[in-house]
C-alpha cells in the first residue's frame, strides 16, 4: 500500500467520491487497495465471480443476495465508485452532522441504511416485501430442519405483525415502523479502518 496521497491520485474522481460518501482519504485508499486485491484479473472492474471467490462469504446464508446488491439491474461489472457507494452505507452515522434540510441524506443515514436492508428482501423491487419474497429470505436464513409449514407460519405471522394496511405485504414504511425501536446505527455499521 503506497502512501495515501500517491494512491489517492490514482483514484479517479476521488474528491467527488469522498464528498458523496463521506469517506476519508485513508478510507478511500484502503478500499481502493481492497478493490484491486479483489480484482484478480486486473480488469478494472469487479464481477460476481470475484465476490464469489471470497471464502468467508460462502459461509453466509444470504451471500447471494448481498452480492446481488452490488450488481443491481443485472449488470455484471462493478466499478470502483459503485463499490464504494454501496460500502458507504455502512459507515457509522455522523452524529455531528449539521442538519441541512435542503441537502439530500448522506448515504449512511438511518433511512438509507434501512432502504439498503429493505432492498435485500425486496428482490423484484416493487417496493413491497411480498409473502413469497419473505419466504425466500426465511428459507435462506433458517436451518434445514425447519419444515415448510413452519416456514409458512412464520412468514404469515411476520407479515401479520408488520402489515398495517392489510395488503399482505410489507412496504418500506411498514418496515421502517417495525424497526423504529432498533438502533440501526449499531446494527448496520462497521469500522473500515483500524
Amino acid at each position, binding site marked *: 500500500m503506497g502512501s495515501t496521497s500517491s494512491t489517492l491520485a490514482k483514484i479517479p474522481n476521488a474528491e467527488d467520491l469522498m464528498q458523496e460518501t463521506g469517506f476519508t482519504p485513508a478510507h478511500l485508499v484502503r478500499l481502493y487497495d481492497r478493490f484491486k486485491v479483489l480484482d484478480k484479473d486486473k480488469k478494472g472492474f469487479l464481477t460476481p465471480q470475484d465476490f*464469489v471467490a471470497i471464502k468467508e462469504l460462502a459461509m453466509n446464508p444470504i451471500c447471494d443476495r448481498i452480492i446481488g446488491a452490488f*450488481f443491481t439491474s443485472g449488470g455484471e461489472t462493478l466499478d470502483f465508485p459503485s463499490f464504494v457507494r454501496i460500502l458507504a452505507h455502512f459507515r457509522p452515522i455522523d452524529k455531528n452532522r449539521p442538519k441541512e434540510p435542503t441537502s439530500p441524506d448522506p448515504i449512511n443515514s438511518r433511512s438509507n441504511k434501512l432502504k439498503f436492508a429493505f432492498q435485500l428482501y425486496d428482490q423484484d423491487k416493487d417496493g413491497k416485501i411480498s409473502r413469497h419474497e419473505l419466504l425466500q429470505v426465511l428459507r435462506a436464513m433458517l436451518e434445514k430442519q425447519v419444515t415448510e409449514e413452519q416456514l409458512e407460519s412464520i412468514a404469515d405471522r411476520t407479515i401479520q405483525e*408488520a402489515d398495517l394496511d392489510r395488503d399482505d405485504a410489507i412496504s418500506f414504511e411498514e418496515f421502517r415502523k417495525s424497526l423504529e425501536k432498533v438502533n440501526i446505527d449499531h446494527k448496520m455499521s462497521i469500522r473500515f479502518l483500524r
Partner: protein
Amino acid sequence: APVMWYSLRVRVKGRTLSGSEGSPSTNVTSNSSTTITTLPIVTWKWHHVETPYLVALWVLVCWLCKLLAQLNARLKSFFPESGLLIICGFILGGIVWGADKAQTFKLEPRNFFYFLLPQIILDTGYFMPNKLFFSNLGAILVHAVIGTCWNAGAVGVSLWGCYLGGAMGDLNIGLLQFLLFGSLLAAVDPVAVIAVFEEVHVNEVLFIWVFGESLLNDGVTVVLYNVFDAFVSLGGSKINAGEIIKGIVSFFVVSFGGSLIGVAFAIIISLLTKYTGKVQIIEAGFIFVLGYLSYLTAEMLSLSAILSVTFCGVCCQKYVNANMDEKSVTAVRYAMKVFANGSETMIFVFLGVTAIDNVIWVWNTGFICLTILFAIVYRFIGVFTLTWMLNRYRLVPIEVIDQLVMSYGGLRGAVAYGLAASLDETRIKEKNLIISTTLIVVYFTVVIQGLTMKPLVKWLKVKRVEPTELKLIAKVNNRACEHILAAMEDIAGHYISISDLIFDTYITWFLMKPEARKNKDYLFSIFHKLNLEDAVNYVAEGEKRGSLAFLRNGDRTNVDFDKKFGMEFSGVMPDITSELDYGIDNVPMTSIRRDSIPSVSLDIHEQDMKDMNEDFNAHHLLQQHLYRSRKNHRHKYSRSDFKINQSEDEVQEIFQRTMRSRLESFKSAKMGVSPAKKITKHPKPSQKMSNGKSTDTSKSYPYGDEDFEFSEVDSAYSGDAAAAGGSSPMRAPPYTVGAGIENPAFMPEMDTPPPPWLTEVETDTSVAPSQRAQRQLPWSPTNLQRLTPLRISNRSTDSFVMADVPAAQDSPEEPPEDGSQQDGTHM
C-alpha cells in the same frame, strides 16, 4: 488403614512424595532381613504401592464425584457443577477427618501449582479463539492490569482501614500484609469463570473479556504477590522509592518475560511438529510435554508461568493443527480436554476436602464479611469504570447488563487459595486467618455467585426485553443485518498492514509444513474453480470426449489432501473457518472489531418467554432456528464441550447450501447450452476435484457410497435415463433401487433462488433442457456432501464402471472411516 495413614502422613496425591517419607517403621520392615520361615505365596505389599495407589485412588474418587454431580439433572440445571464438587469434597474431607482426626489430604500448593494447574491453562490457551482474543486484547489488558491492581489495592487498603478502625479485633497484621492479601484475592480465576459461564451463554465479546482477563491477570497477581511478599520480608522501613520502582519494573519483566517464554516454546512446538511426520503416533505427546516445560521454565525463572503456558497454547495452535496429522490433532484435543477436565474436577473436590480441617480455621467475622463485601463492591466499581472508559472507543457500547454480568462473574478460585497456602507463616503470622478467609471467599463466589448467576441474568433479561418486545420482522432483520455486516466486513477486507502481512507470511513459511501451507487455500480454491467458467470447460471437454469418465491423474498433490482431509469433516471445515481465525488471506487482524451488539442470552429464558400460542411458536422458532452469524457464539470456548458446538454444523449447512445454489444457478443459466454437469473432475492436472463439503455430519443423507448416490441423482431427475444421446457409460441402467429415498436436499428446484445477477440475465429458465442435460449430475460437489470420506484414491478411476454394480444401497452407512482405498472418490 487408619493406622497407616497416621504413620505415613501422605500428602495429597502423594505424587511429590519421594516415598522415603514413609514412616521409618514400614521402611525398616521392608528392608530388614526379616526372618521368614517358609516361602510366602502371597504377601501384603502395601508399602510398595502406597504412594501411587493413593494418588490413583484419589483421582478415581474425584472423577467419581464428577459422575455423581451429573446424576441428578434437575440439580445440575441450577446448581453449578463446581459447587457440587466442592460439596463432595466436604463429604470426603469429613470422612477422612472422621478416620484420622486430621486432614491428611489437603490441597498442597505445590501439587496444585505444578500438577493440577498447568494442563488447565494449556487447555484454555490451546482452544482460545485467537481472532477474538487478539482483536479484544486491548480491552482485556485494561481489565486485567488496571482492574486487578485496583482490586488488590482497594481491597487491601480498605481492610486495613477497617482494621485500624477496630472492626476486626486484634490481629498481628500490617498494611503490607493487607495489601498482600488483597493481591492474592484480586485475581479472577479462569477455572471458576469458565465453569460458571458455560452455563450462561453470553455474547462473545463479553465472554472473551472476562475469560481473557482471568488468564492474563496472573501476570499482575504474581507480580503483586511477590512484590508485597518481598516487601513484607524487607519490613516496612526499607521500602523506598527505589523498591517501588523495582516493583513496577518487575511487573513488566515478569509479564512479558513469561509471555515470551510461552511464545518461544510455541515456536519450538511448531517447528518440531513440522518434522514429526514420521512419528505420528507420538507427535501429539510433544504438545503436552513442551507445554508443561514452558510452565516450569517460566516458574524456574520466577516469571509468570500461567502467562507462559497460555501464550504457548495460543501461539502454537494454528501451526500445530496445520502440521500434524489429522488423527494427532484429534488426539491432542481429546487428551487436552481429559486432562483439563480431570484437573479441574480434582481441584474443586480438594478445595472442599481441605476445608475440613480445624487447624486452619480462624474465624474472624469482621474480617471475612468485610473481605467479601469489598471484593464484590470493588469489582463492580472497577468493571463499570473501565468499561465506561472503553465504551467511548467502541462502535457499539457494552451495555449495562453485560457489565453487570461481567462484574458478577468475577469469581475467585483455587489460584487464590494456592497463593494463600504458600504464604510463609513465620513472616505472616495470620496465615491461617488468611487461608480461612480465602476459602470462604472462594466458596462464596463459586457457590453463591455461581448459583445465582443464571437467575440473575434471566431476571435482567426479562426486564430488559419485556417492554421492548420486537416484532418478528425486526428480529429477522436483526439477524439479517448481522449477516450483512459480516459479509461487508469480508468484502471490505480486514485491515491488515503490510508489515503484518509480511510477518505472517514469513512466520508461516518458517513454522508450517509446506504441504500444509498449500492445502489451506487448496480446498477453497478448488471449490471456487468449480463454479462457472470451469464448469463450462469441463462440460465442453466432456462432450468432446463423449464420456465423463475422466481419469484421475495420480497427481502427488492429492496425497496430502487425502491425508489431511481424509476422514472427518472436522478436518475440512475448520480449515476454512480456521482461515477466519488466523488465516492468511484476509487475515483478520487486531484492527477490526466486529463490535457486537451485546446480548446476554439464555436458552432457558427464551423458552419461558412467551406463552401465547402462535406468537410463541413463531418467535420461538425464529430464535431457535435462525442461523447464527459469525459474531454469535461462533467462538465459544468450552471446557467440557469438545466440539465447538453446532456452529460448525451450521457453517457446513450454509456452505453447502450456498454452493449448491450457485451450482444450481449455473445449471439453470447453462441449461440450454450444455448439460450443466457439476464438475467433479477437472481435466487440468493440478486440479483435483474435491470439495469442501465432505462429511455432512447430519445423518439426513445416509448414503453409503457413490453408486447409491448416483442412482439417487438419477431418480431425482427422473430424466430420460435411457435417452442418453451419448455413449457415455454414465447412462445408467435404471436404478430402481435407489429411487426409493427422496433426497429433499437434492431436489431440482432450488431452495434458494438463483443469484440475482443470474436471474436478470437468464430469465427464461423454461428452456427445455436437452436430454443430455436432463440426465444429470453424477458427481456434483453437492452430492458429495453425503460422502463421508473425502478420499482420493489412487486406485480404480472409473466410478462409472462401478456404477453398474449395484452396491449396498440399502445400508446407508458411512463407509469405514479409515481412508482405505475404496472406490475412487470421484469428487
